[in-house]
Structure formats: C-alpha cells, structure tokens
C-alpha cells in the first residue's frame, strides 16, 4: 500500500511554514474572523441543547463500536448497497482509487465530471489524476470552486477559502468566468457562481461525491451540505461515483439521529444545515442509472492498528477543533501542509502515513485542550498528540540535539544532588547573559525564547536552599 495524503509527504515542517504564514496580515485577519464567527455560532446552538453531552457520548460509543467491527459493517454495507443496485469497489491506496475512478469514467466516455466537496479526493490527488487522463473535473462547492479557479489550496475543513477576501474572489471570477463587469458584493459573486455552475449541473453526465456517512444496515450514503450543489451532483447526472473512506461507516439508519444533530451545530453553528441527501443504490426513474462506491483504505488501517489512537478515525469532519485552536488561528491551514489541518490534521496526517512523514505536526500544539472540549465525537486529541510525540521519539526521529538535551535534563533531574548542581551551574552560566538584572538574549535554541521575551535571572537562592537555611535557623 502506498499511502498518499495530498502533498503532505513533501511539505515543509510546521514551524518553517508557520513562520512565513504568520507574516500574512490578510490571512491572519481572515482566519481570526472566520473562526470567531463559527465558534460563536456553535457556542450559541450548543448551549440550546440540554442533551449535548449525552449526544457526544453516544456518538463516541457508536464510532468506537463501528471501528471494532469495521470488517463486518463494511461487508454489510456492500451487500445492502449492491442489493439496491449499487456497485462497490475497494481501493487499498490513492493510486488504486484514482485508477478505479478514471476507469469508470473512461468506460462512460466522460470527458468532464462535476464534483461535490470531498476532502478525500484531495487526499488522493484525484483531480490531478483525472486531468492526466483527459477528464476535466469541475468543483461545484463555492469555496472549492474559488480554490480551483484560483489555482490554490484549501485552508480549512468547512470554509476552505477563508483565506481569500471578496476582492480576490472577484478577480478570480472575473478572469476565469469571463465576467469583466462583475460586482464585488458577496451576492454578486454568489450569483456568478450560480450561473456558471448551473449550466454544468444540467449538462454534465457524471459526478463524483464524497460521503459524510455510509450506513451499513441499508447500504445508504448521506451527504450533508449547505449550498445545493450536492443535491445537483447526486441526482441529476447519469453516473454517480462516491469516494468513501472506510471510516465513514455507521451501523444503522437510526444512528443518523445522533450525527445529524452533532454535525451541523459543530460545523457551521446551525441547528440543521440546509440540505441532507440520503440515497441507496439506484432509484428507478429518479437520479443516476449507475451508482458506484469506492471504499478507500489509504492508511486508515494503519490508524486502526493502534488502539491508543484509533479514535482518530471517529472524526466526522466538522472543523470545530480548527475553530477553537489557538495555533490554527495564528497560521491557518496551509501551515500544516496537508488537506487535513488543525488539531485533527495534526493527528490524522502523520498516522495515515505510518508516522513516516509530517512528524512536526504532533508538535504543532500547546496542548491547551480546547479541541477536545468541542469535538462532537470526543476524540481526545491532546492525548493522541502526546502519544504520537512518543512515537516520533521511539522511531529515533527526534532531532539529535534535542535527544542529547533531554538526556542531560533527565540526568540533572534524576536526584536532588544532580539538580542542585545544575541549579548552581545555571546561576553561573547565566552571568554573561544578564544585563541590569534581566536576561534579554539567550544562545542556541533558546534564542527563540529571548527573541520576544525577557527572562528574570535564576535567583541567587533556590527554594530548597531557602528551606534548608530556614531549618538551620529554627534549630
């Protein structure tokens, strides 16, 4: 299996990427504004729910249960879907999924395909594979359209184009949609997108969608959306292909009652999002004549194999963790170098790749715990971050200087004698750096600290020395 998570394997390390991105004033302002808006809306609609914690707990249990019996539920899904006239394919990795999808489209001589938002397709690099095969993909989600036409990358799970302001979007639309007189109010831009896409919805014969949930009991697929492009893509064309990560399975139709309450409130701060579509196989006289599901592994079985971090796969892609993450709010999504950004991205991206890449991501966190508080399925992200840091060190991938420093520190802290020696050494060693009772500059890796902070010098007498002296005088 050769796992690909977008371009994460070759992405620059988080600190390096972040350093550049935080210089971008527009990005920071937009990220701040967008996350403020959604998190406040989320807080209001969650506060309305007297049983929010109960819903979270049930969701956590449903997902944990499903992951424990994933092989059963996947097979149940396949049987039910096929019974209803669907066709199910299995793809072990990105390349295989792309091959299957291209193959299906070629069999129908499709030169174009309309796409509903699916991060899974970004994960496997589907658009590039389609273009290579002579098939033009048209993104239909407004934000994804902005990204596609702007030849850009998404920076948030739910509002991928939040780093763009409306003048930029207007420029992109003017150029790529050939609308030189386009106004710049959000309504003008949305109208332009509506016209541009409507023509495609009514004409293009093949569509690709993701899935928010795939129901094992009935073989149904559920797509949760706001704009209506999802409804267009799944019900108007002749051929529909759904790319579904194997972790999207839920056991029964009734389980929707839990997730359809948690997802809209967490993702967009609404009691219910405008449109949900649920369909099973083929419906006679209504919608596509052919329906294919591509079940995707691409490293999910790697994540499944670690019982301590398996719950990462419970994620329902609401983005709530991004909206409260103080680190994400500084940098936006691009710093993570992955289609999955923010706290969930920091744990999912490296695990899909068996910890071989994206090793700086588990460290891209101050462990404040805000993400865990808002996760609708109660993924203990801080714990998993710590667990993954342990894995990085265990693999021997920690920087050598750090390893030496940690060993030295462990030695210094191993008993009181060593600690007291280290304290004395520190007091002496700091002398060259002290000026007027303050340390303003430190060497080596500590220079990052002193770049923006003063440090009070190590006091002449430690607590333990004070205590020992006090005991002496008491005698």
């Amino acid at each position, binding site marked *: 299996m050769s796992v690909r998570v977008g371009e994460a394997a070759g992405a620059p390390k988080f600190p390096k990427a972040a350093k550049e991105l935080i210089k971008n004033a527009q990005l920071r302002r937009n990220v701040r504004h967008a996350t403020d808006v959604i998190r406040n809306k989320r807080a209001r609609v969650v506060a309305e729910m007297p049983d929010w914690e109960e819903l979270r707990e049930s969701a956590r249990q449903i997902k944990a249960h499903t992951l424990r019996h994933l092989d059963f539920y996947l097979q149940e899904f396949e049987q039910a879907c096929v019974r209803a006239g669907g066709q199910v394919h299995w793809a072990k990795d990105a390349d295989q999924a792309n091959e299957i999808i291209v193959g299906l489209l070629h069999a129908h001589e499709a030169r174009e395909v309309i796409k509903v938002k699916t991060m899974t397709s970004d994960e496997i690099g589907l658009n590039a594979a389609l273009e290579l095969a002579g098939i033009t993909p048209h993104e239909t989600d407004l934000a994804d359209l902005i990204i596609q036409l702007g030849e850009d990358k998404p920076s948030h799970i739910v509002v991928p184009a939040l780093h763009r302001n409306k003048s930029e979007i207007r420029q992109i639309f003017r150029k790529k949609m050939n609308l030189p007189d386009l106004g710049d109010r959000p309504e003008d831009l949305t109208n332009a997108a509506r016209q541009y896409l409507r023509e495609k919805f009514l004409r293009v014969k093949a569509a690709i969608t993701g899935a928010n949930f795939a129901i094992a009991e009935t073989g149904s697929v559920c797509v949760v959306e706001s704009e209506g492009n999802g409804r267009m893509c799944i019900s108007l064309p002749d051929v529909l292909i759904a790319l579904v990560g194997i972790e999207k399975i839920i056991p029964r139709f009734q389980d929707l009652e839990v997730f359809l309450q948690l997802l809209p409130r967490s993702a967009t701060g609404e009691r219910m999002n405008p449109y949900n579509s649920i369909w099973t196989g083929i419906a006679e006289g209504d919608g596509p004549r052919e329906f294919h599901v591509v079940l995707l592994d691409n490293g999910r079985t790697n994540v499944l194999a670690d019982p301590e971090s398996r719950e990462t796969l419970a994620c329902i892609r609401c983005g709530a963790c991004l909206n409260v993450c103080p680190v994400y709010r500084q940098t936006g999504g691009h710093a993570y170098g992955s289609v999955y950004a923010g706290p969930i991205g920091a744990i999912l991206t490296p695990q899909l790749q068996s910890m071989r890449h994206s090793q700086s991501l588990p460290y891209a966190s101050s462990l404040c715990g805000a993400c865990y508080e808002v996760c609708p399925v109660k993924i203990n992200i801080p714990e998993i971050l710590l667990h993954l840091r342990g894995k990085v060190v265990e693999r021997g991938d920690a920087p050598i200087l750090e390893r030496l420093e940690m060993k030295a520190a462990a030695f210094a802290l191993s008993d009181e004698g060593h600690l007291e020696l280290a304290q004395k050494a520190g007091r002496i060693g700091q002398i060259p750096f002290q000026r007027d009772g303050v340390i303003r500059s430190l060497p080596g890796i500590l220079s990052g600290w002193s770049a923006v902070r003063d440090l009070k010098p190590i006091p002449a007498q430690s*607590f333990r020395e004070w205590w020992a002296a006090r005991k002496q005088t008491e005698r």
Partner: protein
Amino acid sequence: MLISLFITCYNDTLFPETGKAVVAVLERLGHTVEFRQAQTCCGQMHYNTGYQAEAAALMRHFLDVFRDAEIICSPSSSCVAMIRDQYPRIAAHSGDPDLQRAIEDLIPRVYEFSELLVDKLGVTELGAFFPHSVTYHPACHGLRALQLGDKPIRLLREVEGLELIELPEATECCGFGGTFSIKNPDVSAGMLTEKIRCVLESRAEVCTANDNSCLMHIGGGLSRQRAGVRCLHLAEILASTEAEKLA
C-alpha cells in the same frame, strides 16, 4: 495538617518566592509544611516532548519521594495535571501491577494549591491584603485538565483591597505549552501577543495565574514591551498581608 510541598523543578529554580508564599499561607492557616529534599521533577517536560521512558523514571522517583505523604500540594496546575492524567497511563504501560496500584493510591493525595485551599481545607478567606488591580489568567491545565472552575477567582475575591478585573478572552491559551515555545517560537510569539493585548485591555496592574510557566511567558513578553504590568503567582498574592505586604 501535615502538608508535603511539591515545589516543582522550575519553581524551585526560578520562582522560589512562590514556594515561600505557599508555605506562608499554609502556616498562617495553622498547618505544618514539610519539604522533602529528595524531590526533583514530575517529568512533564520529557513526557510532553515524547520522551516517555525518561518521564517514567522521573515518575518513579516522585513516587519514591512522596509515597507515604498524606497530603501533597503543588503550586503548578500543569504538574498536577501531569500526575493526575498521565501517571496512570505511564504506570499502565509499564505492565507493573504494583506500580499501577501505588500510583492509583498516590493520586488522590495530590492537590493543586487552590484545590487544596478550597476543596480540602475548605477556606477562601485567608486574611490576605493586596491593594492593587488584578486580572486572572486561567492556565489551560488548570482550566481544562483539572477543571478548577472558579476556585482561584473565589480566593482572589476574598483578598482585601484587591480589585479583580476580568481578563478578555481569558480561556485562550497563552502560547507557552512548554517545549512548544521553543519548537514553535513564531506561533508561540503570536499567541503571546494576543494574550498581552488582552492583559493590557484589562488595564490591570497585575496579571496572576496559578502556574508560573504561563506567567514566565506572559511576564517575559510584558517586560520586553516595557508594558508596566507585573506578573505574580496566585500564591504570592494570597500570602500578602497588611503586616507583610508584597510590594
């Protein structure tokens, strides 16, 4: 009561005044404080950076030192969170049932300072006097891991002369995060700027918290910017009296 102080390695070295303040407050309340010299560190820095084996060794040392202490008190919410949340995991990984039992037995006896005062000793009024305006920053570990709630606020409210001002966007992380501030200095600095902005917006003279790690970071930034705002650990404010005023 006999209360065993776990000062923590960084308080011992960098903030002895906080330890002295804890001792002063507890003695004022009539309790006896002991300090076991053999103590060193809870292992948080190593554990949080991924060095679990080294952290496990430090955990065992902590256990050796405090195994038979009746009450252990620490003025560091992050260290208490390490002990309460992570020690059971580390012990479980060791596969050593005796170790697991010993840790299980130890944990209920460990208190963060404001927890000790409010929950265990049942006091909020400490005879403290501190005539300054103060804003309180809830350290993330105290806020979310230990669920301290309003205990520190209740303690501050009882301090005579103290004007308590709410910190805007209080629950946002200050950006210290231990080795995070070293490994991600730019983002940490960005987060610090946000926190300082909020501290200055409060117009308080003093910023306090129950964790010197946050205060070292926030205070270091305030000092660099010559902002004229002091940082003081909660214990030092509570230790300040009419007779022995904190300047």
